[in-house]
């Protein structure tokens, strides 16, 4: 089973829910693995007291100009749809950050002067604590495209942990990175807060998930502080509200320190139980 924890708005509690839920499931003897797919700002490892067991460089393939046989015919610049290739009077310049790795320039070059070579975009790290393993993708600073690294992080998890329940901590937003982190999952939990911001971004996230034909449920975090807009919206749209996590400064304090919450705060554990029951009912 693959479960994505996502949200439109940032800071609603994705990482809090995914790290606590994974730990809780592991403590019940389930084989789970957590994948932190928020590759721009991965944070899960901060909460899990886990040791690094393996890390590897993540690359994307980009063309590298080989001057030897190049006739400067200009075909490569012509075929590139992403302006990643510039033909200058005496050389071909490649802009790796703009390259989507489509291979068109490389394979259509009549003199094979643009062989594809790996370029580093980030690092994939595997961590382990006494209960379970987690895998994190971390994008290098200055790299623009998160999707290839998200895809590679998921591949790593699939290869290393084929049988485990997979929990994906998704990036915020509604564009390509969150789509990549959600499209292959069996279910997506959208975390929101009961405020107009939370509602606005939840609506965007729901519409995105509907384009993907994804099954969704909502967790309302910091419940009790805002208004009832989110609840009304979920009822009108027939989206299940899986649980409401109470607004509680103690939770915020534990989170601020990088601590787990469910083992210290009862109402939070009750909410996790509701999520676990809900997931159990999905099978």
């Amino acid at each position, binding site marked *: 089973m693959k479960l994505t924890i996502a949200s*439109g*708005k*940032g*800071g*609603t509690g994705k*990482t809090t829910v995914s790290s606590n839920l994974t730990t809780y499931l592991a403590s019940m003897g389930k084989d789970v693995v957590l994948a932190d797919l928020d590759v*721009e*700002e991965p*944070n899960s490892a*901060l*909460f899990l007291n886990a040791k690094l067991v393996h890390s590897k460089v993540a690359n994307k393939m980009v063309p590298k100009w080989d001057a030897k046989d190049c006739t400067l015919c200009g075909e490569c610049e012509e*075929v590139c*749809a*992403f302006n990643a290739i510039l033909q200058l009077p005496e050389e071909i310049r490649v802009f790796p950050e703009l390259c*989507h*790795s*489509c*291979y*068109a320039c490389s*394979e*259509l070059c009549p003199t094979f002067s643009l062989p594809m070579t790996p370029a580093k975009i980030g690092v994939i790290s595997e961590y382990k604590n006494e209960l379970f393993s987690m895998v994190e993708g971390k*994008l290098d*600073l*200055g*790299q*623009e*495209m*998160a999707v290839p690294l998200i895809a590679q992080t998921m591949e790593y998890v699939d290869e290393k942990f084929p049988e485990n329940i997979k929990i994906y901590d998704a*990036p*915020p*937003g*509604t*564009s*390509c*990175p969150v*789509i990549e982190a959600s*499209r292959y999952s069996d279910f997506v939990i959208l975390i929101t807060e009961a*405020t*107009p*911001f939370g509602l*606005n*971004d939840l609506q*965007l*996230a729901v*519409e*995105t998930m509907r*384009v*993907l034909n994804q099954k969704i449920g909502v967790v309302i975090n*910091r419940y009790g*502080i*805002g*208004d009832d807009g989110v609840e009304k919206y979920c009822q009108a749209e027939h989206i299940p509200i899986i649980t409401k996590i109470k607004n509680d*400064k103690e939770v*915020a*304090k534990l*989170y*601020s*320190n*990088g601590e787990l919450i469910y083992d210290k705060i009862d109402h939070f554990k009750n909410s996790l139980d509701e999520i676990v029951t809900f997931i159990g009912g999905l099978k």
Partner: protein
Amino acid sequence: MREVVVISGKGGTGKTSISSSYAYLASKDAVVCDCDVDAANMHLLLDADFKEQEDFYSGELAVIDSNLCNNCGKCFEVCRFDAISKEPEYHVVDPISCEGCHYCSRVCPTDAIEMVTQKAGDLFVSNIKTGARMVHAKLGFGAENSGKLVSKVKRVGKEMALKEDKAYVITDGSPGIGCPVISSLSGANLVVLVTEATVSGLHDLKRAHQLTKTFNLKVVAIVNKYDLNREITQKIRNYLATEGVQVIASLAYDENFTKAMSVAKPIVEFDKNCEISQQIEMSWKTITNILKEH
């Protein structure tokens, strides 16, 4: 005209509440840009009227004409994005996977593949309650190129500010460190980094700050919820001091922040006398002073 960009790395640190407060304080003397095109919220706090709308086109999508397709499979072979699949009589493109690279359309022997320009979102110019104008956007579902939409929002906003001789462009950036943030930062005169006193806040602050360094931008910082965890606050302060970044405000954990949001008001409008509003107002004065020198 001077541009201030508010970013945070981590989401939910109070970035939009603060940038909207600056927009409120700058009143008519600013053009406001919401560059968080993925999950835009600023319009809620500033009563945007969505007066002008424009379609934003970016990127292309391959479409196979099933009548022309001879099912040879060349497109399938060259596609690196698993976007093409075979039906009994012809091939089809999965619009979500297609990156718009044109490779398939170039190798198709029967010219059955057309590249269609995609609507990637909507761009809006609104009047807001301060009497100023705001440029904002909504990214289409599953659309790419949010970086390009961010650039467009900024370009429109800056042109408007120059034309109308406004003193400031106030930009709400997007979270993360990837392409939309990089686009948000370009050309900024001053970056305000908003962080919070949590381990994730500190972690993401460092990454966001390192990003601003690669672009050589002048940066100041705001520490939100500083009293939630004073130990982390100290670490944040130490990091910022080492890096030579001035802290222009430290805001206490205050539920007024959320309450103001719930009634769709910037905190400085909701309760201008509360402590955090005073702090934000002072930080805006600091910003305007810094901008006189930069």
